Protein backbone atom coordinates (compact mmCIF):
# COMPACT_ATOMS: atom_id res chain seq x y z
CA UNK A 1 0.00 0.00 0.00
CA UNK A 2 2.77 2.36 0.97
CA UNK A 3 4.64 1.84 -2.27
CA UNK A 4 1.38 2.45 -4.13
CA UNK A 5 0.96 5.89 -2.56
CA UNK A 6 4.56 6.72 -3.34
CA UNK A 7 4.08 5.69 -6.97
CA UNK A 8 0.98 7.89 -7.22
CA UNK A 9 2.99 10.84 -5.88
CA UNK A 10 5.84 10.27 -8.33
CA UNK A 11 3.55 9.75 -11.31
CA UNK A 12 1.61 12.95 -10.59
CA UNK A 13 4.88 14.83 -10.38
CA UNK A 14 6.10 13.38 -13.68
CA UNK A 15 2.76 14.16 -15.35
CA UNK A 16 2.97 17.70 -14.03
CA UNK A 17 6.49 18.26 -15.34
CA UNK A 18 6.33 16.43 -18.66
CA UNK A 19 2.80 16.96 -19.93
CA UNK A 20 1.54 20.45 -19.15
CA UNK A 21 -0.83 20.10 -22.11
CA UNK A 22 -2.92 17.58 -20.15
CA UNK A 23 -4.76 20.60 -18.82
CA UNK A 24 -4.86 22.23 -15.47
CA UNK A 25 -8.23 20.79 -14.60
CA UNK A 26 -6.91 17.23 -14.79
CA UNK A 27 -3.68 17.91 -12.91
CA UNK A 28 -5.50 20.04 -10.34
CA UNK A 29 -7.98 17.27 -9.60
CA UNK A 30 -5.16 14.74 -9.36
CA UNK A 31 -3.29 16.97 -6.91
CA UNK A 32 -6.38 17.41 -4.74
CA UNK A 33 -7.01 13.67 -4.69
CA UNK A 34 -3.42 13.22 -3.63
CA UNK A 35 -3.91 15.81 -0.87
CA UNK A 36 -7.05 14.10 0.42
CA UNK A 37 -5.35 10.67 0.41
CA UNK A 38 -2.31 11.91 2.30
CA UNK A 39 -4.23 13.89 4.91
CA UNK A 40 -6.53 10.92 5.46
CA UNK A 41 -3.44 8.74 5.85
CA UNK A 42 -2.05 11.10 8.45
CA UNK A 43 -5.33 10.85 10.41
CA UNK A 44 -5.01 7.07 10.29
CA UNK A 45 -1.40 7.27 11.50
CA UNK A 46 -2.36 9.62 14.34
CA UNK A 47 -5.24 7.34 15.25
CA UNK A 48 -7.47 10.28 16.07
CA UNK A 49 -8.66 13.66 14.83
CA UNK A 50 -6.69 15.93 17.17
CA UNK A 51 -8.92 19.01 17.40
CA UNK A 52 -12.07 16.93 17.88
CA UNK A 53 -10.75 14.85 20.77
CA UNK A 54 -12.82 16.24 23.63
CA UNK A 55 -14.45 14.27 26.39
CA UNK A 56 -15.59 10.90 25.11
CA UNK A 57 -13.42 11.17 21.98
CA UNK A 58 -10.38 12.20 23.96
CA UNK A 59 -7.02 10.86 22.89
CA UNK A 60 -6.19 7.48 24.39
CA UNK A 61 -2.47 8.28 24.25
CA UNK A 62 -0.32 11.29 23.58
CA UNK A 63 0.24 12.13 19.92
CA UNK A 64 3.78 12.00 18.70
CA UNK A 65 4.60 15.55 17.71
CA UNK A 66 6.63 14.31 14.75
CA UNK A 67 3.54 12.88 13.08
CA UNK A 68 2.19 16.41 12.72
CA UNK A 69 4.96 17.62 10.45
CA UNK A 70 5.89 14.40 8.72
CA UNK A 71 6.31 14.42 4.91
CA UNK A 72 2.90 12.76 4.66
CA UNK A 73 1.12 15.81 6.04
CA UNK A 74 3.36 18.12 4.01
CA UNK A 75 2.63 16.21 0.80
CA UNK A 76 -1.06 16.54 1.56
CA UNK A 77 -0.61 20.28 2.04
CA UNK A 78 1.22 20.54 -1.30
CA UNK A 79 -1.54 18.62 -3.03
CA UNK A 80 -4.19 20.98 -1.70
CA UNK A 81 -2.38 24.22 -2.56
CA UNK A 82 -1.29 23.08 -6.03
CA UNK A 83 -4.68 21.59 -6.84
CA UNK A 84 -6.74 24.54 -5.68
CA UNK A 85 -4.55 27.17 -7.39
CA UNK A 86 -4.52 25.14 -10.63
CA UNK A 87 -8.29 24.77 -10.64
CA UNK A 88 -8.93 28.36 -9.66
CA UNK A 89 -6.86 29.68 -12.51
CA UNK A 90 -8.56 27.48 -15.08
CA UNK A 91 -10.71 29.03 -17.78
CA UNK A 92 -13.81 26.98 -17.03
CA UNK A 93 -15.96 28.42 -14.27
CA UNK A 94 -16.93 24.96 -12.97
CA UNK A 95 -13.27 24.21 -12.30
CA UNK A 96 -12.90 27.50 -10.43
CA UNK A 97 -15.77 26.56 -8.12
CA UNK A 98 -14.11 23.18 -7.52
CA UNK A 99 -10.89 25.02 -6.70
CA UNK A 100 -12.60 27.09 -3.99
CA UNK A 101 -14.32 23.99 -2.64
CA UNK A 102 -10.98 22.15 -2.50
CA UNK A 103 -9.39 25.06 -0.67
CA UNK A 104 -12.20 25.04 1.91
CA UNK A 105 -11.80 21.27 2.29
CA UNK A 106 -8.08 21.81 2.90
CA UNK A 107 -8.82 24.45 5.54
CA UNK A 108 -11.23 22.03 7.25
CA UNK A 109 -8.73 19.16 7.19
CA UNK A 110 -5.88 21.23 8.58
CA UNK A 111 -8.21 22.67 11.20
CA UNK A 112 -8.91 19.09 12.29
CA UNK A 113 -5.18 18.44 12.36
CA UNK A 114 -4.65 21.61 14.38
CA UNK A 115 -2.03 22.96 12.00
CA UNK A 116 -2.84 26.68 12.10
CA UNK A 117 0.10 27.82 10.06
CA UNK A 118 -0.91 25.57 7.20
CA UNK A 119 -4.40 27.05 7.16
CA UNK A 120 -2.80 30.48 6.88
CA UNK A 121 -0.58 29.06 4.12
CA UNK A 122 -3.54 27.79 2.06
CA UNK A 123 -5.43 31.08 2.39
CA UNK A 124 -2.36 33.15 1.54
CA UNK A 125 -1.53 30.98 -1.47
CA UNK A 126 -5.01 31.45 -2.91
CA UNK A 127 -4.93 35.20 -2.36
CA UNK A 128 -1.51 35.49 -3.98
CA UNK A 129 -2.36 33.25 -6.94
CA UNK A 130 -5.56 35.17 -7.70
CA UNK A 131 -3.73 38.46 -7.33
CA UNK A 132 -0.85 37.40 -9.61
CA UNK A 133 -3.39 36.39 -12.25
CA UNK A 134 -5.17 39.68 -11.80
CA UNK A 135 -8.33 37.60 -11.52
CA UNK A 136 -10.16 39.85 -9.05
CA UNK A 137 -11.40 43.41 -9.00
CA UNK A 138 -10.75 45.59 -5.98
CA UNK A 139 -14.02 44.85 -4.20
CA UNK A 140 -13.65 41.09 -4.58
CA UNK A 141 -10.11 41.30 -3.35
CA UNK A 142 -11.10 43.27 -0.24
CA UNK A 143 -13.95 40.84 0.42
CA UNK A 144 -11.70 37.79 0.13
CA UNK A 145 -8.93 39.44 2.14
CA UNK A 146 -11.14 40.32 5.11
CA UNK A 147 -13.10 37.08 4.81
CA UNK A 148 -9.85 35.15 5.15
CA UNK A 149 -8.69 37.30 8.07
CA UNK A 150 -11.98 36.72 9.94
CA UNK A 151 -11.94 32.98 9.18
CA UNK A 152 -8.37 32.66 10.41
CA UNK A 153 -9.08 34.64 13.59
CA UNK A 154 -12.15 32.47 14.28
CA UNK A 155 -10.05 29.36 13.86
CA UNK A 156 -7.16 30.57 15.97
CA UNK A 157 -9.38 31.60 18.89
CA UNK A 158 -11.22 28.30 19.01
CA UNK A 159 -11.75 26.64 22.41
CA UNK A 160 -9.34 23.80 21.70
CA UNK A 161 -6.58 26.30 20.97
CA UNK A 162 -6.88 27.67 24.49
CA UNK A 163 -6.10 24.24 25.91
CA UNK A 164 -2.99 23.80 23.85
CA UNK A 165 -1.38 27.18 24.31
CA UNK A 166 -2.46 30.54 25.60
CA UNK A 167 -3.88 32.32 22.56
CA UNK A 168 -2.71 35.72 23.62
CA UNK A 169 0.97 34.92 23.70
CA UNK A 170 1.42 33.31 20.29
CA UNK A 171 3.57 36.02 18.73
CA UNK A 172 5.36 37.00 21.91
CA UNK A 173 6.25 33.34 22.45
CA UNK A 174 8.09 33.12 19.14
CA UNK A 175 10.33 36.08 19.84
CA UNK A 176 10.90 34.69 23.31
CA UNK A 177 11.94 31.41 21.67
CA UNK A 178 14.40 33.33 19.50
CA UNK A 179 15.80 34.82 22.70
CA UNK A 180 16.24 31.30 24.09
CA UNK A 181 17.94 30.13 20.89
CA UNK A 182 20.41 33.01 21.08
CA UNK A 183 21.19 32.21 24.71
CA UNK A 184 21.62 28.49 24.18
CA UNK A 185 23.71 28.36 21.00
CA UNK A 186 27.13 29.33 19.81
CA UNK A 187 26.55 32.55 17.89
CA UNK A 188 29.77 32.40 15.93
CA UNK A 189 29.73 28.92 14.39
CA UNK A 190 26.42 27.47 15.53
CA UNK A 191 25.67 24.40 17.60
CA UNK A 192 23.74 21.82 15.63
CA UNK A 193 25.52 21.99 12.25
CA UNK A 194 22.48 21.56 9.98
CA UNK A 195 20.39 19.35 12.25
CA UNK A 196 17.58 21.89 12.52
CA UNK A 197 17.38 23.02 8.88
CA UNK A 198 17.70 19.49 7.48
CA UNK A 199 16.32 17.40 10.35
CA UNK A 200 13.82 14.61 9.68
CA UNK A 201 10.88 14.70 10.23
CA UNK A 202 11.09 18.02 12.05
CA UNK A 203 14.35 19.73 12.94
CA UNK A 204 12.61 22.12 15.30
CA UNK A 205 12.29 19.26 17.76
CA UNK A 206 16.10 19.18 17.95
CA UNK A 207 16.09 22.93 18.60
CA UNK A 208 13.72 22.38 21.51
CA UNK A 209 15.91 19.55 22.88
CA UNK A 210 19.04 21.73 22.71
CA UNK A 211 17.33 24.52 24.61
CA UNK A 212 16.14 22.13 27.29
CA UNK A 213 19.63 20.71 27.53
CA UNK A 214 21.03 24.20 28.03
CA UNK A 215 18.55 25.39 30.62
CA UNK A 216 18.56 22.04 32.43
CA UNK A 217 14.91 21.07 32.10
CA UNK A 218 13.43 17.75 31.06
CA UNK A 219 12.35 17.57 27.46
CA UNK A 220 8.90 16.00 27.21
CA UNK A 221 8.32 16.33 23.48
CA UNK A 222 7.39 19.04 21.03
CA UNK A 223 9.22 21.48 18.85
CA UNK A 224 9.74 25.20 18.95
CA UNK A 225 8.76 28.05 16.64
CA UNK A 226 11.71 30.42 16.85
CA UNK A 227 10.98 32.67 13.83
CA UNK A 228 12.91 32.43 10.57
CA UNK A 229 16.08 33.65 12.28
CA UNK A 230 16.23 30.90 14.90
CA UNK A 231 16.99 27.76 12.89
CA UNK A 232 19.94 29.00 10.75
CA UNK A 233 21.34 30.78 13.80
CA UNK A 234 21.35 27.62 15.87
CA UNK A 235 22.71 25.55 12.97
CA UNK A 236 25.50 27.66 11.55
CA UNK A 237 25.73 30.81 13.68
CA UNK A 238 25.56 34.37 12.43
CA UNK A 239 27.28 33.59 9.10
CA UNK A 240 24.70 30.87 8.42
CA UNK A 241 21.89 33.29 9.28
CA UNK A 242 23.19 35.88 6.83
CA UNK A 243 23.74 33.30 4.09
CA UNK A 244 20.33 31.65 4.53
CA UNK A 245 18.39 34.91 4.48
CA UNK A 246 20.41 36.17 1.53
CA UNK A 247 19.55 33.02 -0.43
CA UNK A 248 15.89 33.22 0.63
CA UNK A 249 15.57 36.80 -0.63
CA UNK A 250 17.52 36.01 -3.79
CA UNK A 251 15.48 32.95 -4.78
CA UNK A 252 12.13 34.52 -3.94
CA UNK A 253 12.95 37.59 -6.01
CA UNK A 254 14.12 35.49 -8.97
CA UNK A 255 10.78 33.65 -8.71
CA UNK A 256 8.91 36.97 -8.54
CA UNK A 257 10.69 38.18 -11.67
CA UNK A 258 9.92 34.93 -13.46
CA UNK A 259 6.14 34.91 -12.90
CA UNK A 260 5.45 37.63 -15.44
CA UNK A 261 7.59 36.13 -18.16
CA UNK A 262 7.08 32.98 -20.15
CA UNK A 263 4.19 31.62 -22.14
CA UNK A 264 0.60 31.24 -21.06
CA UNK A 265 0.81 27.68 -19.79
CA UNK A 266 4.21 28.15 -18.18
CA UNK A 267 2.90 31.28 -16.49
CA UNK A 268 0.14 29.26 -14.83
CA UNK A 269 2.59 26.70 -13.48
CA UNK A 270 4.99 29.41 -12.41
CA UNK A 271 2.32 31.41 -10.57
CA UNK A 272 1.02 28.32 -8.78
CA UNK A 273 4.54 27.32 -7.75
CA UNK A 274 5.53 30.85 -6.72
CA UNK A 275 2.33 31.50 -4.76
CA UNK A 276 2.60 28.22 -2.87
CA UNK A 277 6.30 28.45 -2.05
CA UNK A 278 6.21 32.17 -1.27
CA UNK A 279 3.25 31.62 1.08
CA UNK A 280 5.17 28.82 2.78
CA UNK A 281 8.15 31.16 3.21
CA UNK A 282 5.85 33.82 4.65
CA UNK A 283 4.46 31.45 7.26
CA UNK A 284 8.03 30.30 7.95
CA UNK A 285 8.81 33.83 9.16
CA UNK A 286 6.98 32.89 12.36
CA UNK A 287 6.93 29.09 12.12
CA UNK A 288 10.61 28.72 11.40
CA UNK A 289 12.26 27.08 8.39
CA UNK A 290 12.71 23.31 8.05
CA UNK A 291 13.88 20.79 5.46
CA UNK A 292 10.64 21.17 3.55
CA UNK A 293 11.14 24.89 2.96
CA UNK A 294 14.69 24.18 1.80
CA UNK A 295 13.43 21.59 -0.72
CA UNK A 296 10.67 23.91 -1.93
CA UNK A 297 13.16 26.75 -2.43
CA UNK A 298 15.35 24.50 -4.60
CA UNK A 299 12.28 23.62 -6.69
CA UNK A 300 11.32 27.31 -7.02
CA UNK A 301 14.84 28.19 -8.14
CA UNK A 302 14.84 25.40 -10.73
CA UNK A 303 11.41 26.33 -12.12
CA UNK A 304 12.33 30.04 -12.22
CA UNK A 305 15.55 29.37 -14.12
CA UNK A 306 13.67 27.23 -16.63
CA UNK A 307 11.03 29.96 -17.12
CA UNK A 308 13.67 32.65 -17.50
CA UNK A 309 15.45 30.66 -20.18
CA UNK A 310 12.16 30.36 -22.04
CA UNK A 311 11.64 34.11 -21.72
CA UNK A 312 14.99 34.72 -23.38
CA UNK A 313 13.99 32.38 -26.21
CA UNK A 314 10.85 34.48 -26.67
CA UNK A 315 12.87 37.69 -26.78
CA UNK A 316 15.10 36.26 -29.46
CA UNK A 317 12.17 34.92 -31.46
CA UNK A 318 10.47 38.31 -31.49
CA UNK A 319 13.29 39.47 -33.79
CA UNK A 320 12.47 36.84 -36.39
CA UNK A 321 10.62 37.75 -39.57
CA UNK A 322 7.31 36.00 -40.40
CA UNK A 323 8.94 34.20 -43.35
CA UNK A 324 11.55 32.80 -41.05
CA UNK A 325 8.89 31.54 -38.68
CA UNK A 326 7.08 29.64 -41.40
CA UNK A 327 10.40 28.27 -42.63
CA UNK A 328 11.36 27.02 -39.21
CA UNK A 329 7.90 25.54 -38.70
CA UNK A 330 8.19 23.58 -41.94
CA UNK A 331 11.67 22.54 -40.85
CA UNK A 332 10.13 21.20 -37.65
CA UNK A 333 7.56 19.25 -39.62
CA UNK A 334 9.97 17.81 -42.17
CA UNK A 335 12.51 16.71 -39.67
CA UNK A 336 15.29 18.84 -38.27
CA UNK A 337 17.66 19.48 -41.17
CA UNK A 338 17.41 22.09 -43.90
CA UNK A 339 19.49 23.51 -46.71
CA UNK A 340 18.57 27.00 -47.74
CA UNK A 341 19.81 30.35 -48.98
CA UNK A 342 18.83 33.20 -46.74
CA UNK A 343 18.04 36.87 -47.28
CA UNK A 344 19.62 39.52 -45.07
CA UNK A 345 16.69 39.71 -42.65
CA UNK A 346 16.73 35.99 -42.19
CA UNK A 347 20.46 36.03 -41.61
CA UNK A 348 19.91 38.38 -38.71
CA UNK A 349 17.25 36.09 -37.31
CA UNK A 350 19.46 33.05 -37.68
CA UNK A 351 22.31 34.91 -35.99
CA UNK A 352 19.99 35.68 -33.10
CA UNK A 353 18.88 32.10 -32.84
CA UNK A 354 22.48 30.94 -32.95
CA UNK A 355 23.53 33.43 -30.30
CA UNK A 356 21.03 31.98 -27.86
CA UNK A 357 21.96 28.42 -28.73
CA UNK A 358 18.65 27.53 -30.35
CA UNK A 359 20.01 26.41 -33.71
CA UNK A 360 23.34 25.30 -35.11
CA UNK A 361 24.19 27.02 -38.41
CA UNK A 362 26.74 26.00 -41.01
CA UNK A 363 27.70 28.60 -43.61
CA UNK A 364 27.75 28.83 -47.47
CA UNK A 365 24.74 26.72 -48.28
CA UNK A 366 23.18 27.20 -44.93
CA UNK A 367 22.24 24.16 -42.97
CA UNK A 368 20.20 24.81 -39.85
CA UNK A 369 20.03 22.21 -37.16
CA UNK A 370 17.56 22.95 -34.37
CA UNK A 371 18.75 22.26 -30.86
CA UNK A 372 16.00 20.63 -28.88
CA UNK A 373 12.26 20.37 -29.36
CA UNK A 374 11.53 23.31 -27.10
CA UNK A 375 12.33 26.05 -29.60
CA UNK A 376 9.51 24.95 -31.89
CA UNK A 377 6.97 24.79 -29.12
CA UNK A 378 7.99 28.34 -28.26
CA UNK A 379 7.91 29.30 -31.91
CA UNK A 380 4.44 27.95 -32.51
CA UNK A 381 2.95 29.66 -29.51
CA UNK A 382 5.07 32.78 -29.83
CA UNK A 383 4.12 33.44 -33.43
CA UNK A 384 1.32 35.69 -32.23
CA UNK A 385 3.78 38.05 -30.57
Amino acid at each position, binding site marked *: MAIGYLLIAISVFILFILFPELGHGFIGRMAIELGVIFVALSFILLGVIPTLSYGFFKLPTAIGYEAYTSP*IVLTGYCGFILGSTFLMTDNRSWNRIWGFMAALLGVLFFYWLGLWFFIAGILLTILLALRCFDAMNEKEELLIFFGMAILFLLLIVSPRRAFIVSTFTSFWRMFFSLDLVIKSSDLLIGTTGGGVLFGIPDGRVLMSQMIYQKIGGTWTGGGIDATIFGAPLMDFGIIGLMFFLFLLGFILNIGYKAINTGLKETKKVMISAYAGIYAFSIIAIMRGPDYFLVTLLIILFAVSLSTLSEAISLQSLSLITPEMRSMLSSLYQTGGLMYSLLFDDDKMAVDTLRKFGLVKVHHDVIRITPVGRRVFEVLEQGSSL
Partner: protein
Amino acid sequence: MSFSFNLKMLDLANPLVGFFLVLIISLLFAVAESLYGGLSLAFDKLVWVIILVGSAWYCIGVFAGNFFVKRIARLQRYLRIVSNILLIVAIYLGLFFFLADTTSPWQLDIS
Protein backbone atom coordinates in the same frame (compact mmCIF):
# COMPACT_ATOMS: atom_id res chain seq x y z
CA MET B 1 -6.06 65.94 -5.14
CA SER B 2 -7.64 63.02 -3.42
CA PHE B 3 -5.97 59.90 -2.23
CA SER B 4 -7.92 56.69 -2.01
CA PHE B 5 -6.38 53.54 -0.66
CA ASN B 6 -6.32 50.73 -3.17
CA LEU B 7 -5.43 47.26 -2.01
CA LYS B 8 -3.83 46.58 -5.38
CA MET B 9 -1.20 49.24 -4.63
CA LEU B 10 0.13 46.97 -1.93
CA ASP B 11 1.95 44.39 -3.99
CA LEU B 12 1.69 41.46 -1.61
CA ALA B 13 3.40 39.15 -4.10
CA ASN B 14 6.59 41.20 -3.91
CA PRO B 15 9.00 39.33 -1.60
CA LEU B 16 10.14 42.53 0.06
CA VAL B 17 6.62 43.79 0.84
CA GLY B 18 5.31 40.44 2.12
CA PHE B 19 8.28 39.72 4.34
CA PHE B 20 8.35 43.08 6.09
CA LEU B 21 4.57 43.32 6.34
CA VAL B 22 4.40 39.99 8.17
CA LEU B 23 7.48 40.71 10.29
CA ILE B 24 6.24 44.15 11.39
CA ILE B 25 2.70 42.88 12.09
CA SER B 26 4.17 40.03 14.17
CA LEU B 27 6.34 42.43 16.15
CA LEU B 28 3.33 44.69 16.76
CA PHE B 29 1.29 41.69 17.91
CA ALA B 30 4.15 40.65 20.20
CA VAL B 31 4.22 44.14 21.75
CA ALA B 32 0.41 44.13 22.12
CA GLU B 33 0.49 40.69 23.74
CA SER B 34 3.20 41.72 26.16
CA LEU B 35 1.22 44.83 27.14
CA TYR B 36 -2.01 42.85 27.50
CA GLY B 37 -0.49 39.97 29.39
CA GLY B 38 1.96 41.97 31.50
CA LEU B 39 4.87 40.13 29.89
CA SER B 40 8.30 41.57 29.56
CA LEU B 41 9.48 42.73 26.15
CA ALA B 42 12.96 43.23 27.54
CA PHE B 43 14.56 40.48 25.52
CA ASP B 44 18.25 40.33 25.14
CA LYS B 45 19.42 43.19 22.91
CA LEU B 46 20.87 40.53 20.65
CA VAL B 47 17.33 39.55 19.59
CA TRP B 48 16.83 42.94 17.98
CA VAL B 49 20.33 42.85 16.49
CA ILE B 50 19.64 39.41 14.97
CA ILE B 51 16.30 40.58 13.55
CA LEU B 52 17.97 43.65 12.03
CA VAL B 53 20.93 41.71 10.60
CA GLY B 54 18.66 38.98 9.19
CA SER B 55 16.27 41.49 7.59
CA ALA B 56 19.18 43.46 6.15
CA TRP B 57 20.63 40.35 4.52
CA TYR B 58 17.21 39.40 3.19
CA CYS B 59 17.02 42.85 1.56
CA ILE B 60 20.52 42.40 0.12
CA GLY B 61 19.43 39.04 -1.30
CA VAL B 62 16.35 40.59 -2.92
CA PHE B 63 18.37 43.41 -4.48
CA ALA B 64 21.01 40.94 -5.63
CA GLY B 65 18.18 39.03 -7.33
CA ASN B 66 17.14 42.26 -9.09
CA PHE B 67 20.70 42.92 -10.13
CA PHE B 68 21.57 39.46 -11.33
CA VAL B 69 18.31 38.35 -12.95
CA LYS B 70 19.30 39.58 -16.43
CA ARG B 71 22.83 38.32 -16.10
CA ILE B 72 21.53 34.91 -15.05
CA ALA B 73 19.04 34.85 -17.89
CA ARG B 74 21.81 35.53 -20.42
CA LEU B 75 23.37 32.23 -19.47
CA GLN B 76 20.40 30.68 -21.23
CA ARG B 77 22.36 27.80 -22.69
CA TYR B 78 23.32 26.55 -19.25
CA LEU B 79 20.07 27.39 -17.47
CA ARG B 80 18.27 24.27 -18.62
CA ILE B 81 21.09 22.04 -17.44
CA VAL B 82 21.27 23.80 -14.07
CA SER B 83 17.50 23.77 -13.60
CA ASN B 84 17.30 20.08 -14.48
CA ILE B 85 20.10 19.25 -12.02
CA LEU B 86 18.33 21.29 -9.33
CA LEU B 87 15.05 19.48 -9.99
CA ILE B 88 16.78 16.11 -9.70
CA VAL B 89 18.37 17.26 -6.42
CA ALA B 90 14.97 18.38 -5.14
CA ILE B 91 13.29 15.10 -6.11
CA TYR B 92 16.13 13.16 -4.49
CA LEU B 93 15.88 15.24 -1.31
CA GLY B 94 12.10 14.88 -1.25
CA LEU B 95 12.25 11.11 -1.69
CA PHE B 96 15.00 10.81 0.89
CA PHE B 97 13.01 12.78 3.44
CA PHE B 98 9.94 10.81 2.57
CA LEU B 99 11.61 7.46 3.04
CA ALA B 100 13.69 8.40 6.06
CA ASP B 101 10.70 9.75 7.98
CA THR B 102 10.42 7.90 11.26
CA THR B 103 6.65 8.29 11.43
CA SER B 104 5.78 6.97 7.99
CA PRO B 105 4.71 3.41 7.23
CA TRP B 106 7.40 3.13 4.52
CA GLN B 107 10.16 3.93 6.95
CA LEU B 108 13.71 3.40 5.73
CA ASP B 109 16.19 2.22 8.32
CA ILE B 110 19.14 4.58 7.89
CA SER B 111 20.81 3.87 11.20
